[in-house]
């Protein structure tokens, strides 16, 4: 069994390793999945930045076109030469601007400012339209435009963010001169956010510090974490998407992985940033992995079924082989040995033929057989002490082994040869004298057949023929001898060697009155045989005889578990002897 145990250990170890791998393998996959999601976020973040940059280029171009319009240049030139701006001029310039705004195709600006060369706002369109005359110069975007530069910026005002662009208004007729600037503003809206991420499968939000500005989806996210992430960003803004680390945020129902990036321009001073977010990937555990296994994953093309099946068959065959060699075959051998023992083909199990635990079993069985022998010897000693030593003509010996066998049993009759010498084989069956049929304690039994059916006994030469069984009629009780004195019965425990049946004790009147026909017949046979052998029978009384037989019968029944005991009278060494035979089955 040692190799089988080793094999089972190896199988269990392999199973544990396989289970560990199965449980651990999803983790690297999960990490890779998260890393992929982060890369996707960084990519989307970069794409948004590129899209916003492209949008800025288009907006600057639009501002440049707007500022080149001759009506605008003329209006601003005229306003620049005026010391004080009035409402009439403002309206005239505003009309010019509104017409140009209407002519813009595509995404129209949400406001426009026309500024003279002094930096004064001559007119506003679509936003604060009635305000004019204030100085817009001072803002870097306006100052640069007034100095001849094209550029863009981000402005934040009143909780709104604007992508602004500016261009100088230049009088191209000689002498070429700067006459002012045009500023266009595009509001950052939800539509813009949705448009920016329409093909990216992410969500986008624009924020000013803790305030939402716009987003592709309305999400109530924790701004504190995002602000902290923005504050941690250093260096060039263009590296935010790649240098920043995604953060986990959650709404009421969903968890998001978010990557933040700073927005440029003036609005950056107000902590303007945008955030690209995706729903946090589901944790892939062992069970989740199994859930997503598809048929194609288990196809022969994608899974090494042949290798797995082959290994399984090999493992199984090897394990069965080890089991057969170490368990099945020795067990069969032991079973066969036990059957031979049961059949009587052998007296003991062969301890040397069985190794390991099976050898221990054989030894244990043999030890028990020896114990039974010792018990039988003890029983015989008791019977001898009851009936007297056999050589002196007392009761004979007891063949327990032969008597334990059923009269009719599977496998045929009992062994024809005498059993080998053993502790519990202490008699020679000798010449059996048929006795009346055995009987259980409470009832009479049919006539015994075993003694007559044993050929070795019947065929033994030199022995007197068996006595015919004395079978008195059932149910007839022999009246107690009137000559016996009627005394109080002695206590059972009072019987000792002095109370031998050959002694002259006084019998129990009640017991004497209830004579058992079977015991009486045995008694008669015993007395008859003793007399025929020339032995004295004067001290032998039926009462003592039957009490001893009853006691002996009860002892045998309790020790062997038999249902009844058969007594046989026979001659041994020229003297009458008595054999008690336990009968298990009728």
């Amino acid at each position: 069994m040692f190799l089988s145990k080793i094999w089972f250990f190896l199988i269990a170890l392999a199973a544990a390793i396989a289970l560990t791998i199965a449980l651990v393998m999803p983790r690297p996959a999960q990490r890779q999945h998260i890393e992929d999601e982060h890369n996707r976020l960084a990519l989307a973040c970069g794409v948004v930045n590129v899209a916003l940059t492209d949008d800025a280029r288009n907006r600057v171009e639009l501002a440049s076109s707007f500022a080149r319009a001759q009506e605008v240049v003329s209006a601003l030139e005229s306003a620049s030469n005026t010391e004080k701006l009035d409402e009439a001029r403002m309206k005239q310039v505003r009309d010019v601007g509104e017409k140009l705004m209407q002519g813009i195709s595509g995404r129209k600006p949400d406001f426009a400012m026309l500024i003279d060369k002094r930096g004064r706002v001559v007119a506003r369109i679509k936003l604060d339209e009635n305000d004019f005359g204030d100085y817009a110069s001072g803002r870097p975007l306006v100052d640069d435009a007034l100095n001849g530069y094209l550029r863009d910026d981000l402005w934040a005002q009143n909780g709104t963010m604007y992508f602004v662009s500016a261009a100088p208004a230049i009088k191209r007729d000689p002498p070429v001169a700067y006459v002012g600037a045009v500023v266009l503003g595009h509001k950052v809206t939800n539509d813009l956010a949705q448009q920016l991420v329409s093909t990216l499968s992410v969500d986008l939000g624009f924020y000013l510090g803790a305030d939402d500005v716009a987003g592709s989806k309305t999400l109530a996210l924790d701004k504190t974490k995002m602000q902290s992430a923005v504050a941690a960003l250093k260096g060039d803004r263009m590296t935010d998407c790649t240098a920043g680390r995604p953060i986990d945020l959650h709404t009421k129902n969903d968890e998001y992985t978010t990557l933040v990036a700073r927005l440029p321009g003036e609005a950056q001073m107000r902590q303007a940033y945008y955030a690209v977010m995706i729903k946090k990937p589901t944790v892939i555990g062992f069970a989740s992995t199994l859930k997503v296994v598809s048929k194609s994953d288990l196809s022969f093309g994608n899974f090494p079924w042949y290798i797995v099946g082959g290994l399984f068959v090999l493992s199984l065959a090897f394990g069965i082989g080890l089991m057969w060699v170490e368990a099945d075959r020795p067990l069969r051998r032991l079973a066969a040995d036990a059957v031979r023992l049961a059949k009587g083909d052998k007296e003991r199990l062969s301890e040397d033929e069985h190794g390991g635990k099976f050898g221990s079993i054989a030894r244990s069985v043999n030890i028990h057989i020896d114990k039974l022998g010792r018990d039988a010897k003890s029983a015989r000693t008791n019977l001898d002490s009851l009936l007297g030593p056999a050589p002196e003509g007392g009761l004979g010996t007891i063949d327990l082994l032969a008597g334990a066998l059923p009269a009719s049993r599977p496998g045929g009759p009992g062994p024809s040869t005498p059993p080998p010498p053993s502790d519990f084989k202490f008699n020679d069956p000798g010449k059996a004298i048929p006795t009346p049929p055995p009987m259980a304690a409470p009832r009479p039994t049919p006539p015994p057949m075993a003694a007559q059916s044993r050929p070795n006994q019947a065929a033994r030469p030199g022995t007197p023929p068996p006595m015919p069984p004395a079978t008195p009629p059932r149910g007839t009780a022999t009246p107690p001898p009137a000559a016996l004195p009627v005394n109080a019965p002695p206590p059972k425990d009072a019987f000792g060697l002095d109370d031998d049946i050959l002694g002259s004790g006084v019998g129990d009147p009640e017991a004497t009155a209830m004579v058992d026909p079977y015991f009486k017949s045995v008694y008669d046979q015993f007395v008859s045989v003793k007399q025929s052998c020339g032995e004295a029978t004067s001290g032998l009384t039926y009462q003592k005889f039957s009490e001893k037989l009853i006691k002996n019968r009860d002892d045998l029944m309790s020790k062997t578990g038999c249902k009844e005991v058969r007594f046989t009278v026979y001659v041994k060494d020229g003297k009458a002897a008595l054999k008690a035979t336990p009968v298990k089955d009728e």
Partner: protein
Amino acid sequence: MLRAILAWLVLLPVAGAAHAAPPTSLTGKLELPAPPGRPALAVKGFLDRAENQLAPVKPLAPTNQMIVVVEGADKPVSPPQVVIDLLGETFSRRVIAAPAGAEVVIKNPSKTARLLTAAEDPKLIPQGPINPSGSKSFRIEEPGKVYTIGDKDAPHLKVKIVTINTPYYAYPDETGHFAIENIPPGSYKLKIWYGDGWIERPDDVVDVGAKGKTEFNPKVAAGAFTPGKK
């Protein structure tokens, strides 16, 4: 008593003659080096600024950040009020000189309320916003002290107030011309402020004559506009 009256009668014409002396002035033109290049954008948008294709961009005009100051024995006794206009997104000047002890008044003719504070002394300006058409005034005392006034919500909106120990100063125009009127005759040290500090110059002594205009053309060395070389 009689002697006192006679003495007063003798000195009265002298005092009258002094009051009637013609005002003198110090004028001149700053000899400026080539204008400095434009500094890099402090805040830029998604794109770098680009020059237009129709006309050359304007050069940087350093004079709008310059102050010409002459310091003599006279200290400002009762300096005049210094007024700064808040014109929407900018102040009337980027740098302002204020004699020590002068009252500075910031007026807001624009339509936007501003909350101004001095970076160097948050208590300098009275608390509260300067509403449209409103004003805030405060007094500066310590000569040599520089205050940077601004609105934290509009980082571009800044003005520097330079506290000087003289009532005589001027702001040069775009060409560099300046004029300090009503300056008493005497010897003065001429100093030029640019941007964030004084320009270090060797020719810093000017003698103002007793009559008429005194012409003096201070020369600003090359590299004076370079940060750290003043």
